[in-house]
């Protein structure tokens, strides 16, 4: 586990028409073992944020630290899961999950790599699918495999870029609960990018609203639902009010209010 800290991070893309600012002085801090969600209007630069934190691109300005160390390039202690759960279709489910280990720990015996993958599959209730091909899985199952893959190398930081966005409502809620049980078992600091306010409230300790592009910090709120959460918690007056506030903030960000 390590904390994620962004200090006044700005980023702009260079286009033929000149610089194109995407993020403007974003600051945030996810304490060790905590779960933070980032919500904001479509196209406000949330995905750029994930690429910055994982070291895939460098910010134009500001500093990004993981566990107190400045991020200068890709770091193997980060796990990533995307909305599109790309699978290596020619490999079995287990072999898909071990992929990061083959890069990070190439010397680890294949048996041990696979045992670790099996352990994670159990956590996401996919026992019995170890040897299946990805094409035989449903969208929700693929996303669960994708989560396992992002966790297999025991990353300290997990970055989730709308992983549940393309799933139907029931599957999504099922995966939220799986996400909670994964957090209980694996020691990770999580940052979730999402469009779904209920999802952000159900999963996080803190929700950050970003403004429209260029994205700036607009609003931050703590979620006090404790660590034992059920879907019923989403329907209490207290949560409903919090969701209404977030809803309002998104509308402000979109410039509609």
């Amino acid at each position, binding site marked *: 586990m390590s904390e994620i800290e962004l200090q006044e991070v700005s980023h702009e893309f260079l286009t033929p028409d000149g610089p194109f600012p995407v993020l403007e002085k974003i600051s945030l801090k996810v304490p060790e073992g905590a779960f933070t969600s980032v919500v904001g209007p479509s196209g406000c630069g949330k995905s750029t944020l994930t690429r910055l934190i*994982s070291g895939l691109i460098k910010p134009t300005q500001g500093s990004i630290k993981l566990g107190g160390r400045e991020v200068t390039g890709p770091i193997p202690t980060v796990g990533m899961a995307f909305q599109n759960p*790309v699978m*290596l279709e*020619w490999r079995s489910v287990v072999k898909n999950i071990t*992929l990061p280990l083959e890069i*990070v720990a190439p010397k680890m015996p294949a048996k041990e790599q696979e045992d670790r993958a099996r352990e994670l599959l159990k956590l996401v209730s996919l026992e019995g699918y170890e040897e299946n091909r990805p094409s035989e899985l449903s969208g929700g199952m693929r996303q669960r495999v994708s989560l396992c893959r992002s966790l297999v*190398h025991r990353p300290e930081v997990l970055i989730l870029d709308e992983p549940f966005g393309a799933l139907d409502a029931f599957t999504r809620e099922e995966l939220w609960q799986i996400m909670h049980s994964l957090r209980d078992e694996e020691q990770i600091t999580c940052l979730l990018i999402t469009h779904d306010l209920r999802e952000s409230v159900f999963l996080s300790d803190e929700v950050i609203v970003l403004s429209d592009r260029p994205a700036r910090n607009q609003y931050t709120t703590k979620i006090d639902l404790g660590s034992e959460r059920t879907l019923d918690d989403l329907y209490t007056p207290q949560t409903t009010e919090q969701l209404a506030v977030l809803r309002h903030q998104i509308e402000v960000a979109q410039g509609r209010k």
Partner: protein
Amino acid sequence: MELSNNLVRKVVIPLIAIAIFLVVWEWIVWINGWPNYKMASPSDLGPAFWKYRVLFLEYGWDTFWRTVAGLGLSVLVGTMLGMIMGFSRVIREGLYPLLVGFNAIPKATVVPVIALILVGLDDLNTILIAFLISFFPIAVSVSIGLSTLEPEYRDILRSLGATRLTIFWKIALPKTLPEFFGALKVAVTLAFIGTNLMEIVEPHGKGLGHLFDSGKINADYPLMFAVLIALAFLGIVLFYIVVFLERIFAGWAERD
């Protein structure tokens, strides 16, 4: 029961179709009373094959190995070109019009040019034509396969610090295999056409094309038809070798 059903579908029915085809062919020739020098009939083919059996084996082998060599060259160069174009947009945009233009030239016109430049090197210029006619689909399919790789694939591995080579080896290459084999199926037929083109347009005493040509000169129609059948057979063999390799290396892409 299921097994025998499969056997009937895959073996017996095609065999019946071939038999019907031969009978109809024989019947058309017979009913019209066509002599051998107008149209050979299936019953003439057996004697023709037997009479020239040694030449069929020898020339068939010439055609076969030169096609395979040309195709091998295509795979090598086509894959390399495809890789370069797949990874670099600048090179892709630069090379594409050149390749398309080159591919548009009818290869029959290139045959005399190659034969003139490499005069006397029969095997080499035959292989070269087989290669020139067949590398294009391979280069295009590999470059498309690589350039359409979803960015998530790359990000997953790059965020772990994997090198470009690892990404290519673990993801890009296997991901491109179905497209590659699709193109190889087209290329194998093209390479085969290329070999025969050289053998027929610039006969040099080798290959089934040469046998066809001598049948033409001697007005030996049964021999010409026998060569056609032999070519069809060889083409089928080459095609199914590719299909077999595809099953092994890219069988995962097939879905029931």
